[in-house]
């Protein structure tokens, strides 16, 4: 086990909520957060006041996301429905015919994109009407992400990514000889990172026809996160989860990307997330361990989260949230005296 640096100090562990099954997602806003389970439950909270938005349905909720302003919460479920809440009230239920596996909100407008099979629908939630339906064609949609500042919608699946800017135009296609299962825009919107089945990471710079291809991963690149902070590199850092490894990529002065492996996990890494406005990275694995990495380099703290797998992570400005396969939603806050 690598030695730990000082600091970190996330010592107050609290089981914040206990749901019936596997936590499929935890998400945060400035005001609070939400979590969903494979039993179909959806909870949300503001401060410490917990609300049950949806009780057990036996139909797993696969995806959960707050709108950019934090006003709406959307959940996509295996019963083929997307439900949208506003101030704890269910305001819209959209029906599709297949599992809803991914959803993403527009960066400023109350517009929601979600996938169902190989289609993606875009809804205007304020008007409760469909804006467009996109067909990925090549396969089921494996991920989707709305650009953090603009109108571009990226959709991933078999043979790479398609990016729509204008619904009536053909999408921009980044074709790969594999399937892309995870995508993430950098917070400045300049780059799109693609995690692929063939153990590669591809990074596309908008306007640059030649993407970078990073190899040498121990397995498929299953999860991605970007830092909000750019220093010390010339672009935000990319964190990747692949098998038992966490790999950080930083853009160097020569325009290339350099990677380094963070060693600390013994089992498969399921989730990673940079703390907002920081280079602190959290990574969580199948054996229930969470590692905190100082400046995306040095292992500063190991949080023994759970005897079960940690399946999802999210940062709030004051705490770290983790969901487990046993249905626990766990919260770590900094203990006041331990800090430093």
């Amino acid at each position: 086990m690598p030695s730990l640096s000082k600091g970190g100090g996330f010592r107050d562990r609290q089981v914040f909520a206990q749901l019936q099954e596997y936590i499929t997602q935890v998400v945060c806003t400035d005001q609070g957060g939400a979590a969903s389970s494979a039993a179909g439950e959806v909870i949300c909270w503001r401060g410490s006041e917990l609300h049950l938005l949806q009780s057990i349905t036996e139909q797993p909720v696969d995806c959960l996301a707050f709108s950019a302003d934090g006003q709406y919460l959307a959940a996509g479920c295996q019963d083929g429905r997307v439900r949208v809440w506003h101030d704890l009230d269910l305001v819209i239920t959209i029906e599709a015919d297949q599992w809803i596996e991914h959803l993403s909100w527009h960066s400023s407008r109350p517009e929601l994109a979600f996938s169902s099979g190989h289609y993606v629908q875009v809804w205007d939630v304020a008007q409760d009407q469909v804006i467009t339906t996109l067909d990925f064609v090549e396969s089921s949609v494996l991920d989707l992400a709305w650009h953090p500042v603009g109108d571009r919608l990226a959709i991933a699946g078999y043979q790479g990514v398609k990016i729509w800017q204008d619904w009536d135009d053909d999408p921009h296609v980044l074709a790969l000889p594999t399937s892309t299962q995870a995508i993430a825009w950098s917070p400045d919107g300049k780059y799109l990172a693609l995690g692929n089945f063939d153990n590669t990471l591809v990074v596309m710079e908008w306007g640059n026809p030649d993407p970078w291809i990073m190899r040498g991963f121990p397995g498929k690149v299953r999860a991605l996160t970007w830092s909000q902070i750019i220093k010390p590199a010339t672009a935000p850092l990319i964190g990747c989860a692949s098998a038992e490894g966490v790999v950080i990529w930083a853009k160097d002065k020569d325009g290339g990307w350099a990677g380094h492996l963070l060693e600390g996990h013994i089992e498969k890494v399921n989730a990673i997330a940079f703390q907002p406005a920081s280079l602190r990275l959290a990574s969580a694995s199948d054996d229930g361990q969470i590692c905190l990495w100082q400046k995306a380099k040095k292992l500063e703290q190991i949080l023994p989260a759970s005897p079960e797998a940690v399946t999802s992570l999210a940062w709030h400005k004051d705490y770290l949230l983790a969901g487990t396969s046993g249905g626990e939603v766990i919260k770590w806050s900094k203990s006041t005296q331990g800090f430093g």
Partner: protein
Amino acid sequence: MVSLQQIPVTVLTGYLGAGKTTLLNRILTESHGQKVAVIINEFGEVGIDHQLVVGADEEIFEMNNGCICCRVRGDLIRIIGNLLRRRRGFDRLVIETTGLADPGPVVQTFFVDEDLRDRLLLDAVVTVVDAKHIQRHWESKEVQEQLAFADVILLNKTDLIPGAELELLSQRIQSMNALAKVYPTHYAGIDLGQILGVEAFSLDRALEIDPEFLHEHHHHHEEDINSVAFTELQPLDELKLNRWIGELLEVQGGDIFRFKGILNFAGQEERFVFQGVHMLFNGKRDRAWQPDEVRQSQLVFIGRNLDAQQLRDGFGQCLA
């Protein structure tokens, strides 16, 4: 979570109308006390098979088709990943590759994908053949591949052809795929113990090759698909064999559907067992050779247009 038990997976293939649905219904109704999840790889015949599947304690999930490895992998991970999250999960998974689909990509996915490899155990590829209609479909690439990939072949609808013809048919199929167990059936009537729990892909069971086949040197070679087997008493050089297999799969991997081997390496006290599909394989050191056991290497390939002499020559270069 290393301690999790692996869930067995049966891949069910067969030409349209061969009797897959009948077999699937039997699995669902007769697997008492087991929760069986079924994934149907829809391929053209939307809904028809679906309605015929009887209700038991099962759930059916549709894949969004596709016959290319990566796409199949994406869909399998998507569906199976979701299934595995449920606490009241399932005890067995049956993947039906409907109609014309080549089972190769589905089987390969279990070799390639780390998540599926960890959580699932590929039990067997079961191919259902319509004994009468196969006579008209020998040329079909898919029929040939379904036979080549099979661990168990049900020669179904045996009532429709005379006994002598059935015997010839059985021999012909066995000559194409020497590793498969071939059973004549009527209405897919077979003891489910013969098709479930076979563990044909488990390395521990990798080598149950019919000794008859290993010692037989002449086979019908009119078929595009054939099996080639060797035995060798002289120990092998591990490095040479690795190099040979690597080069062989690189050049001919597309035509080699299945292969299995148990090897006697010079200087090793343990058996080395391996098996693979196309370019992918896994292997490991197995138990030690027993004192009363004939220390010999055995190797079987099933593929398209395999040149037995060329393979034998290549293998011959690997002796220590």
